[in-house]
């Protein structure tokens, strides 16, 4: 089943879906494995697996640290692919790759995407690859039936959003605010206006990410967005309280 279908089906049963994120190899693949088990058991609907990169330009301090330490600990792209294959085989929910373009470029764009497809990955989020630079990526993604998730930002005009949506599949990742990952988002009237703009520009499901960390945040998004993205919050939780806290945290979000 393709990503869009899978999400539509899940959405029929739930008011809002949860997408979580983790950095592969941080603090270790063993902990990643335990965290994912708890996420899935507590109803997470889709998981973003970030392949670490040495220059994570769009990320904030917590995820930068996770990227750095994963690499310093010896995490290789090949290990990430093997781990992702294991997860995708074990669980029904869709898994996505999130990473920066150089990881794909250096691996060989076509080889990377073919491999991702083979191991059961459903799509990719590449924040530093706008469609203007991604012609080859977009056509290969379509060839392999992988969803090239497109990103909307509060600075995107409605016209720009329509262009982006035309290149995307699966869902749209709406960055909730300016800035990098990790700090709090203020869900005010201008946020509502922004989400309304996103809605007008596409009929694809909308995921909202950046700064979502609590049940209240998820509640605010319910009815406005289709997917709430929990990123830094679980990484911080694992760091401060250990992986066993992830299950109860996820269960308490909806």
């Amino acid at each position: 089943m393709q990503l869009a279908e899978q999400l539509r089906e899940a959405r029929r049963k739930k008011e809002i879906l949860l997408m979580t994120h983790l950095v592969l190899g941080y603090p270790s693949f063993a902990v990643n494995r335990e965290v994912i088990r708890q996420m899935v058991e507590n109803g997470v609907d889709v998981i973003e697996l970030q392949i670490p990169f040495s220059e994570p330009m769009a990320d904030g301090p917590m995820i930068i640290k996770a990227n750095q330490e994963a690499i310093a600990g010896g995490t290789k792209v090949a290990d990430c692919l093997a781990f992702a294959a294991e997860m995708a085989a074990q669980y029904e929910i869709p898994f996505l790759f999130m990473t920066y373009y150089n990881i794909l470029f250096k691996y060989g764009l076509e080889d990377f995407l073919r491999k991702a497809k083979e191991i059961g990955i459903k799509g990719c989020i590449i924040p530093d690859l706008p469609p203007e630079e991604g012609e080859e990526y977009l056509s290969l993604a379509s060839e392999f039936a992988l969803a090239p998730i497109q990103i909307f930002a509060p600075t995107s005009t409605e016209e720009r959003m329509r262009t982006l949506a035309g290149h995307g599949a699966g869902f749209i990742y709406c960055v909730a605010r300016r800035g990098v990952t990790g700090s709090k988002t203020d869900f005010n009237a201008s946020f509502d206006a922004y989400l309304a703009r996103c809605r007008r520009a596409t009929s694809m499901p909308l995921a909202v990410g950046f700064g979502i960390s609590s049940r209240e945040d998820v509640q605010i998004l319910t009815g406005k967005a289709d997917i709430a993205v929990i990123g830094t919050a679980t990484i911080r939780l694992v760091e401060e309280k250990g992986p066993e806290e992830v299950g109860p945290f996820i269960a308490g979000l909806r």
Partner: protein
Amino acid sequence: MNKPGYFGQWGGAYIPEVLYETFRELREVYARAKADPAFWQEYLDLMGSYSCRPTPLTYAENLSRHFGGAQIFIKREDLNHTGAHKANNVMGQGLLVKRMGKTRVIAETGAGQHGVACATMAAKFGFACTIYMGEEDVHRQRPNVFWMEKLGATVVPVTTGSRTLKDAINEAFRDWVSNMDTTHYVMGTVCGPHPFPEMVAWFQSIIGQEARKQILAVHGRLPARVYACVGGGSNAMGIFQGFLADPSVELIGVEAGGKGLDTGQHAARLASADASPGVAQGYKTMFLQDADGQMRDTHSVAAGLDYIGVSPLLTDLWEKGRVRFAAATDQEVMTALDLTIKKEGIIPALESTHAFVQAFKEAGELNGDQAIVINQSGRGDKDIFTIAHAFDDPSWKEFIRKKGEEYAAR
């Protein structure tokens, strides 16, 4: 392949969506300025009245005699206000910031020369200013940190990654994606996403325009060779543009050989076999990276050359065979620096001295009616701690020890 922002297969604009509109505006304001002759005149007037342009071309008589080959000329970018070619780019972008109506500038800096130039421009034009600088560079270029702060800038030491120039660039981008409405990122070199490489090269082309006229006036002919050090590549592109259309002029870019190309501890992207094509920091070029695409640690005694990537314009010119690349080691740099100070009474920056090393290696191959031009991108005053340390200077050490005791006693 003629996509805008590409030089051969290199360059591009690999930017996050949140900056799409910011870059659209920047491309527009740059294109309008470029099409407006009054803008360039305003720029020339500013550089003439504020930054000592045109900078002189100095005949290095003693060095020429010492090597017994080509006549050696030095283009004196060290005599710019703030002591380096960085001022050319910064004042140009400052004029664009005024046109965009923004009120704050941010920048990365390695050697601190771009940071000081940017803080100076901000003071003059009344902008708020934040400079990102790798923690390692904060330590090795301390005098420039002092001046940036005196000029009213906030200096943020960057503690992520390798704590050098590339990490400072990442942090500047992270600031920009939050504050793009009020803030312009003054990229310090001919790297990063389009239009930065092209735009910075345009402002730096003033070096080559002057140098070409000057060498023709004093020497009567074009030079045989032109040497420039290459960090990101802005001073090199600046002077090379004056001679690109003259096939008889050989252009040589000199990278940081660090502890030697065979040690892996260097920053030679094009002069070594260690770099490979990649996409990072918003553009495609040859990067020093591992097989997975993770950037490697680089090394150079010169903070301004200690960088993983290189200008897409230079990578293209290298690929086409128009620019030749060489590397100078830390040790060769110290020797050439000492010689230049003693023979000519000129103190080049550690970065600039890399160009002198290669010129000195080759001067003897040429004959007395040929000329070579070395671009002295900056002055060495900022490097006083590093140079004193490298020469293990006893009276300087004594002075520092005494100062330390004096502060400790308070």
